[in-house]
């Protein structure tokens, strides 16, 4: 797994999953928000080591049966062979990544503690954010209508109109 994070704040932007990555994949891996420059993005590659185990495997050899004159395969004894046995986390934060791999925790809920050079010093859980509370559907109650004041406004407006008309009429009379 490659973890992409901010070298400044330690915020984790995202991950590229997988246990084995070639250098080209590591070089090209990039996940970042729009407002973060590429050179501020750090990459933490989770380390694994290959495991091996020793198995005993029967060896065979071919011999000629003198009676039948046919070639036969016969056991030639067991030998010990070293074979692959998967990958194991080999990382300073092994315990955390075991939980991530098993789905117990999400790496996005963590953040990197970085030094001045943007190098990872620790990985810690982010403080929990308050969950936005859903809006309870409430009926919007109409306010109590203040009829007297609304009427007062209308009356004042009409008085003004009467005054304007009176002036107009008087002007024409003159």
């Amino acid at each position: 797994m490659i973890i992409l994070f901010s070298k400044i704040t330690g915020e984790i932007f995202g991950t590229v999953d997988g246990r084995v990555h070639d250098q080209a994949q590591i070089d090209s891996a990039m996940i970042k928000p729009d407002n973060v420059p590429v050179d501020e993005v750090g990459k933490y590659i989770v380390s694994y080591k290959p495991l091996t185990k020793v198995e005993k495997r029967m060896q065979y050899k071919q011999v000629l049966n003198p009676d039948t004159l046919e070639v036969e395969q016969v056991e030639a004894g067991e030998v010990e062979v070293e074979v692959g046995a998967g990958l194991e986390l080999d990382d300073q934060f092994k315990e955390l990544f075991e939980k991530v791999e098993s789905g117990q925790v999400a790496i996005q809920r963590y953040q990197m503690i970085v030094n001045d050079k943007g190098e990872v010093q620790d990985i810690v859980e982010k403080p929990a954010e308050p969950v936005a509370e859903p809006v309870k559907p409430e009926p919007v109650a109409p306010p109590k209508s203040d009829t007297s004041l609304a009427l007062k406004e209308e009356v004042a407006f009409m008085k003004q109109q009467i005054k304007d008309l009176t002036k107009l009429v008087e002007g024409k009379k003159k």
Partner: protein
Amino acid sequence: MTLDYGLKVSKPWYDVKTATPAQLVFSSKYPTLRVHTKGSGTITHTGGRTVTIAHGLGYVPMFMVHGNIYGGSNFYQLPYVDSSNVSQAYAYADATNLYIRVHDDFGYVRHNINDLGEETSIGYIRTVARIGRSNPTVGDSDCALRFTLYVAKNATIYEARLHYYVQDRRGSSNMYWRVWGIAEDNTGDFGSDPLGRAVTTHSHRPEGNPGADSYMTFGIKDAMNDVTTRSGWASGNNFGVIMRREPEFPDNNDMADYDDSSNLGFSYLTTLTGNNLLDYKYTIFKDKIE
């Protein structure tokens, strides 16, 4: 003659020689999507609401993106289109990157208005909320709005927006006004004139040139924060704002949110109290989009 050659792998307990296509886990006879990269992450508000994931394939690949749209552990395939036909979360790709984006409104919670009123030269009118020179007779008016606000005490408020419906507009020049929060733990009823109440330390000074029948939106985060950090604040309390004209406000320029009682819902608040907007999981395939 039907040719039947290639490589087949059957599911356990099925004879690969006679297995139907549904009983195979692989057949070289059929095209297969090949995974290029998989991963996950979180889109944040402070991160610009977009994340860019490099794939470097040099062509537009097939991809799948899932997101926990409702914030839980269930993941839904993007895009997520809301009931207003707005794509709230979506993903697209070019020859270099995969982009996952959430809409500017995604993650906001809406809070409804429950009271309003205005103060004019002839007195306080509770049934109307106007700002500016609303009527030559009535004179200038300032107004107050009250909302039921579901924000936890001391919550980090990343954004708070007041959406105000402008029903009528006089004049055509730029308008300036100032908005305060009402400094009360639970803003009381607007039965008496609310314009004289104590206001918050912080205020906001929006300006704009709205047309009639349009929405104005502006931020009031700091004023809201002054109220939601009060010792007596609790989620579900009432939060009020007072809007007054600034001195630069020219005469004969006004906007109004008339209350015909049917228009009450046209003013509302939206808040964003979380930075993590969307957890996503992506899969990019090596296959080209045909």
